[in-house]
């Protein structure tokens, strides 16, 4: 197991190294740089003439005049060694300040979505398998198809409408106005939780439908295996049998797609966030990219990719714990 852990950790580091290079290249890709943008903003309309020397000056101020490899190493070593993502030029403060809060909120949405997905899909999928071809099973199948078919933004609008007209609550944003600028407290955390419910349900909707069917199918396969009959033939009570044998294996396909789910949530989040007015990273990413505020864009890309890579890493570890065959094959 230790060997397996070391292997996977090294794998993750190597992956992140290549990811960081790619992110850096993406940061370099757009024509022009922040210096031009800055000069344009500052002096446009003032009638001032900007010379190449001025531009070079500005570049030197921002450290943009160094060769790319050097800038890359400065950038990445600051991140790795000091957790410092650099300067957010457009905001005239550090990137950490700009994205700090948003990252935590994005992660809160990610995790609450994953939790909602798994808490519903795993037990319900198992139940549907055990009661296959029953009324409940058919009802769940219909629900699943709805889940696949309904686009997220539509669901977001529907829930927004329902919660405003019937519950008189604001679903927009992640905090009620009272708490938005208040310091952290128990009440504020609860307020956040209550605001997380709606986005989590929306983002979890299709994943739940999908994972539910996966769990149901795996569980059905596992229920009919000889090893379950063998355990039954040992006199193991039915409920214990279900939990110990098929249920445990039915979780595997879900666990192995945690990274995939995280990826999907990140890509669906911006649209849902737009409808619900959530402060998350996606829109900031877009804006900073348009502004050529590259350290902000780079930080967001790097953090989101790292989250996905890390979720994949977690999923590998969980899978190895759940299924001893994994270690044997790969470790």
């Amino acid at each position, binding site marked *: 197991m230790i060997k397996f852990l070391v292997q996977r950790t090294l794998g993750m580091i190597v992956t992140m190294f290549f990811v960081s290079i790619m992110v850096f290249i993406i940061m370099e890709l757009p024509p022009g740089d922040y210096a031009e943008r800055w000069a344009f903003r500052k002096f446009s309309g003032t009638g001032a003439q900007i010379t190449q020397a001025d531009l070079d000056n500005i570049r030197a101020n921002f450290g943009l005049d160094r060769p790319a490899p050097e800038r890359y190493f400065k950038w990445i070593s600051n991140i790795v060694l000091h957790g410092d993502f650099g300067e957010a030029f457009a905001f005239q403060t550090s990137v950490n300040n700009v994205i700090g809060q948003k990252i935590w909120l994005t992660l809160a949405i990610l995790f609450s979505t994953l939790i909602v997905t798994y808490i519903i899909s795993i037990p319900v999928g198992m139940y549907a398998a055990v009661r296959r071809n029953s009324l409940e099973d058919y009802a769940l199948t219909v629900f699943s198809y709805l889940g696949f078919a309904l686009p997220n933004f539509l669901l977001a609008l529907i829930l927004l409408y329902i919660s405003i007209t019937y519950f008189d609550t604001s679903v927009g944003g992640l905090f009620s106005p009272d708490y938005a600028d208040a310091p952290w407290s128990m009440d504020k955390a609860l307020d956040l939780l209550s605001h997380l419910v709606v986005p989590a349900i929306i983002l979890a909707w299709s994943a739940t439908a999908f994972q539910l069917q996966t769990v149901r199918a795996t569980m059905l396969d596992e229920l009919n295996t000889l090893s379950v009959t063998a*355990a039954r033939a040992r006199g193991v009570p039915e409920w214990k049998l279900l939990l110990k044998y098929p249920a445990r294996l039915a979780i595997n396909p879900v666990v192995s797609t945690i990274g995939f789910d995280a990826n999907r949530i990140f890509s669906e989040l911006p649209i849902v966030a737009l409808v619900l007015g959530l402060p998350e990273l996606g829109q900031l990413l877009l804006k900073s990219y348009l502004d050529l505020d590259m350290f902000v864009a780079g930080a967001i890309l790097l953090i989101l990719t790292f989250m996905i890579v890390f979720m994949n890493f977690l999923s590998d570890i969980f899978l190895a714990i759940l299924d001893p065959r994994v270690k044997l094959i790969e470790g």
Partner: protein
Amino acid sequence: MENIKEKTDDNLLEVKNLKISFKTDEGIITAVDGVNFTVKHGETLGIVGESGSGKSVSTWSIMRLLPKNSIIDKKSSIRFRKKDGKVVDITKLKARSKELRKIRGGEVALIFQEPMSSFSPVYTIGNQISEAVLQHRDVSKEEAQEIAIDMLDRVGIANPRQRFKQYPFELSGGMRQRAMIAVALSMNPALLIADEPTTSLDVTIQAQILELMNELQEELGMAIIFITHNLGVIAQVADKIEVMYLGKILERGTTKDIIQNPQHPYTQALLKAIPRLDHIGERLNAISGDIPSPLSRPTGCPFYTRCEKVIPGICDVKMPNPTKLSDTHTVYCFLYEEKNV
């Protein structure tokens, strides 16, 4: 109905008039139809027949392990004498009753043809043996582990302590079948059902497992129902044999009766199909034709469609009555019924 003349007190198991059907999309399939057999304490009954003849279905029903779409006919009975001396009809037990759970493993244990898939791949061998022990004996976890390790040792697994901690895929096929036997015997059953326990193993391992089973039976004194489609294998282990075909018993007798003096054309054909060392080079006489599908079961004797000695107008009309050739030997065939008439 035939008379069972044996003293019923001796019988550990009495299966009477067993009829089992399955509800399927294509209709109702009758897999076992009117089967009777008995097993005494410490005795080995062999059940032999081609694939699909209903060997597994009729014996799994003793532990009520058949899937939910199976129906055991109301007139069937499976009477089993428990260790406490009480006789229960297993067909009448509730599916989730504690009594049934105690019988599963504690009174009747089962080993399967596929030792690989009968273990769960995600738990150690030791976990699965301990589970069996804990289910049926009032012992602590540590004691269960000791019993399990002891059992692994007894079935001839070297380094049992180490094997205890290993996963099924870390053992060889023969080793896994030994472990499967260890699981079954660790629960101390009075009856062991061995459903083709050696079919998936190669010949030398097969012989070792048969020898092991014989040894353990002498040591522990349990009765065995040994299922196979190979009469050659069964001759080495069984005291008496039932020959099954398409859900019906066609011939029954002691091992000697069946092997040395087979009467039913089906039994004779099965015997001709065994490869023999002294006949190497001769063509094996496989039985011609295929087993009919249980969906289109022939009326009359189920074997008439492939029988060399079929009597047209008789065999295809009704099932023959049992003909007693001796105290121990019974055959269901018109060839003999006629002589008696």
